[in-house]
């Protein structure tokens, strides 16, 4: 029922830029009836309170705004809000406790086959899935704070989940404790900008079959398995930070079947594996920084035609490891902190080539248990001997023009 009494009934024509007949309604009562009786393009202001919702359906273009963050609760068993109309905007609402369900992918907000929706400045607390977009276009997800607390991957959903979407912008969100922070499957032309995704149970960002997408200036931190980008083309990855993804099978960035992409100006710090390449091709890896990783790059033999330029590698346990005797990628003008060559003509480029693959990284790639000898004096001696007379390491994996100084001084 719409409450039409006293101060709770307000009309602001100033807000009605969409339609002349649109009005603003302030409510604290039965939300479903309120939505049914509202006209398209109305604005609903929800006052502070606790609302228990079961798949609250928004089937007309509405602007729903919370006043002092009212709580919409799924009571640990329900889906909370389902949007099936275009041009819906939801902001400043706290969504809590959408229950775990393996049949329905219960989510706090589900957008199904819609266009031009906005989900902004909401708080999501302890939901199974938080924001779920299916077959939607031109939507904006901005400034949301998404936190979940589940400890097990199997009992946890994704923070922001996109399935068959186009032109979605995900911006300035904070995501923590979900299975995958952001999950994209069959998505085109979308942008993921300035999000912070940390302590997720699997990947901070998980990217599947999503061509022509772009993600930049995000921070992915302490995720159990890091970030995975798989089976996609033309992906732009710029100025992201991959930090502290540390664990026995964690990756800063895991690339599988990626081609024609650009990885530029990212920072990889303290990851067990900085970037793992499997079946990647025609990708440019330029101006990235790799600092204190276990393996900065792990390049599998099926990756080729990639270009590594102007990256800086410092204090990694292994700069590169590979399982191949050959190399079909180009390494040029990178800075390697382990490079010990000289530069007689002072042009900033070392006069002798650098071989970034150590003997021990080849040995340990083939036979993992040998890693137990890491830091042994013998291994150091063998590495030096291999450096002077290369025999096991791939002969043509070589940087012919190594830089004398890190790239950020130069470029």
């Amino acid at each position, binding site marked *: 029922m719409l409450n039409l009494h006293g101060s709770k009934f307000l009309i602001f024509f100033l807000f009605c830029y969409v339609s002349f007949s649109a009005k603003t309604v302030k409510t604290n009562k039965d939300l479903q009836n309120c939505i049914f009786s509202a006209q398209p393009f109305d604005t609903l202001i929800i006052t502070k309170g606790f609302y228990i919702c079961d798949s609250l359906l928004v089937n007309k273009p509405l602007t729903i705004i919370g006043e002092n963050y009212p709580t919409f609760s799924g009571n640990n068993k329900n889906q909370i809000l389902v949007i099936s109309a275009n041009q819906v905007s939801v902001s400043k609402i706290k969504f809590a406790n959408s229950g775990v369900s393996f049949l329905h992918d219960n989510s706090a907000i589900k957008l199904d086959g819609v266009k031009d929706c906005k989900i902004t400045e909401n708080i999501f607390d302890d939901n199974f899935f938080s924001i779920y977009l299916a077959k939607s276009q031109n939507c904006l997800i901005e400034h949301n704070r998404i936190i979940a607390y589940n400890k097990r991957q199997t009992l946890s959903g994704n923070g922001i989940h996109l399935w068959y979407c186009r032109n979605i912008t995900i911006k300035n969100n904070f995501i923590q404790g979900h299975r995958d922070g952001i999950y994209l499957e069959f998505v085109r032309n979308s942008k993921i900008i300035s999000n912070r995704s940390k302590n997720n149970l699997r990947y901070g960002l998980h990217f599947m079959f999503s061509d022509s997408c772009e993600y930049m200036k995000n921070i992915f931190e302490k995720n159990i398995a890091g970030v995975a980008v798989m089976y996609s083309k033309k992906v732009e990855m710029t100025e992201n930070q991959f930090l502290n993804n540390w664990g026995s099978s964690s990756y800063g960035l895991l690339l599988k079947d990626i081609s024609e992409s650009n990885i530029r100006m990212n920072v990889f710090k303290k990851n067990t594996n900085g970037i793992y390449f499997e079946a990647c091709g025609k990708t440019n890896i330029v101006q990235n920084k790799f600092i204190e990783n276990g393996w900065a790059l792990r390049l599998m033999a099926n990756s080729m035609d990639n270009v590594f330029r102007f990256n800086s590698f410092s204090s990694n346990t292994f700069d590169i490891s590979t399982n191949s005797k050959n190399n079909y990628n180009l390494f040029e003008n990178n800075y390697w902190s382990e490079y010990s060559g000289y530069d007689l003509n002072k042009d900033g480029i070392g006069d002798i080539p650098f071989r970034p693959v150590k003997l021990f990284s080849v040995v340990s790639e083939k036979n993992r248990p040998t890693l137990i*000898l*890491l830091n042994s004096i013998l291994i150091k001696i063998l590495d030096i001997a291999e450096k002077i007379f290369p025999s096991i390491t791939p002969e043509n994996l070589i940087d012919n023009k190594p830089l004398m100084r890190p790239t950020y001084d130069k470029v």
Partner: protein
Amino acid sequence: MDQNEKLKMLFKISLFQTKSNISSKWIVFYFIFFFAASYVSLSFTHETSKAAVNLMNAVLFIVPLASLLYGTIYFYNNIDYIIFILSFPVKRPVIYISLFSGLLIPMAIGFLTGIILPVLLFNANSFLSDFYVFLPLIITGIYLHLIFISFALLIAVINENKLLGFGLSIFIWLLLSVIYDGIFLIALNSFADYPLEYFSIILSVLNPIDLSRIFITINLDLVTLMGYTGAVFHNFFSNIIGCLIIFTSLTIWVLIPLFLGIRFFNKKDF
């Protein structure tokens, strides 16, 4: 001579030895080396665990070598003094043990102050937490001193020939820190098709230097790099039984050369 008198004598000679050793330029140099190593690695990386890894390499390399060489040199250079002491009514094991502790105490002091002082200088506020990171390094460092000084004395007692003594001590150092790892690596590679985790645990327990390295590494986050084997090692060694195995093994490595040394010293005809 009753027990009390023996202890008194032991204390007296050890004290004298310590005094004469601690002012030796080699011990001062030893202190300066560890001070510099610790200071430099702390100033390059602002992280204590990273510094601990750097220092670990220095400790595992230098401590066995220095203990072996300094121990044998000391024995050979002071053979006249030892013969002189033997003419007094003192039991030979007492003399041997005081020789041992007279070497151990100054070296250990040089090592400990060299490592700990820079930690204190850099950040006195977080000294306790930093010290906790360094603790495995310090414990294994002390054990390595114990082991290799007892080896040094054993070698010097057995061989009258100085050259042979030096050769043997360098050989023992090479064997335990390089050749053993080579055999280890070959074994791991030739049996790569078999599950090797427990095999490598056994192999590393048998070598004090490997054991020290693994004990330090499993206490740092470096262990995650070692993958599955690292996890097995971590599970095996990070509980009480694992620690017990590590320290029993290290203690056996101290006791065997020490007792052998005493036996040969008792029978030796100077």
